[in-house]
């Protein structure tokens, strides 16, 4: 395959990924987590069966890597307030209890594995720091919600 043909295939794979898969995901943070989940923890290689069947494994890897970085840069560029909205949306679509979700993310820091490889180290530091802050903001809001609820509320007892 010529160099130009390879480029066209990679571009098509990227467009397909963005148009058909990522556009169906409601927020950028969820998109980041989704794309990161297609990456093998041990090798750092991206895999996507559907895309690979259409465009080949190599073009798929390139497309996923590019999309991963693009979404990461978008999230890094967000003001903290908007990142909090992203996180709120992500908590909502995860269908987990907010209190449990926030606690798990603060303890386990799973968002660390969502960072793409080969990106600027200060950007990574900034992103991780902003997520920690956004979690703290959500926790604060959650505390306010709980304070307003009556103590006998079954929802509060269940942590929801």
């Amino acid at each position, binding site marked *: 395959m010529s160099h130009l043909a390879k480029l066209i295939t990679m571009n098509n794979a990227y467009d397909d990924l963005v148009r058909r898969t990522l556009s169906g995901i409601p927020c950028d943070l969820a998109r980041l987590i989704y794309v990161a989940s297609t990456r093998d923890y041990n090798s750092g290689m991206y895999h996507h069966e559907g895309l690979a069947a259409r465009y080949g494994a190599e073009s798929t890897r390139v497309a996923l890597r590019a999309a991963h970085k693009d979404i990461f840069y978008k999230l*890094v*560029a967000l*003001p*903290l*307030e908007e990142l909090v909205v992203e996180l709120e949306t992500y908590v909502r679509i995860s269908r987990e209890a907010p209190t449990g979700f926030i606690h798990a993310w603060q303890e386990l820091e799973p968002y660390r594995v969502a960072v793409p*490889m*080969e*990106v*600027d*180290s*200060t*950007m*990574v*530091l*900034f992103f991780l*720091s902003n997520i*920690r*802050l956004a979690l*703290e*903001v959500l926790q*604060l809001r959650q505390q306010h919600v709980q304070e307003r609820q009556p103590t006998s509320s079954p929802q509060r007892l269940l942590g929801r």
Partner: protein
Amino acid sequence: MGGSPVTLTSILILTSMIVVALLLWVRHDNEMEESSSRGSTGSKWKGVPDSAPRAEFVSRIFSREDREFVVLLGSPRLLRMYGKERSAVAVDWARRTSRDVSRIMRRHRLSSRHSRNLDVATETKLLLQYLRLRFICGLLVLLIRSFGPYALSDLAAYTSELYQGIGRMLPEGSLTDRLAAADDTKTY
């Protein structure tokens, strides 16, 4: 006004001492930083092309908007956390910019040894810009630790411009290329 020459001399001596102390501190700071990165073998982002981040990203680190948002939430704990987190990122950026430009200049010095047509005026200007940038980076670290990053957005933007300016003054290649080349010449 009989005492003013003495006062002026004292001020000059004091300023010079502060400048020298700051330069020595920046140097020491960078040496500590380099030796710690030499010692750490488990860094996740080792081998990444470590070019200083783009100007728009710098404005995000030093943003006042985020601080205003945090202040409005009215939680002293969150505000403290925000100050600590953002200062750490800002200090990292200032240190990295200083370290990156040192690497670039080291590389430039090595390649200049083989050059036959060095322009003394350009080299002098380059050296002065380099010293200015190193000084400002040191000053930034000091100010970030003292006052937090949000009041320093203009100085940070100026630092970023100065850094890019050094890249433009160098004979050829982008800053990233130069950093990649400088990486090859590292002794560790």
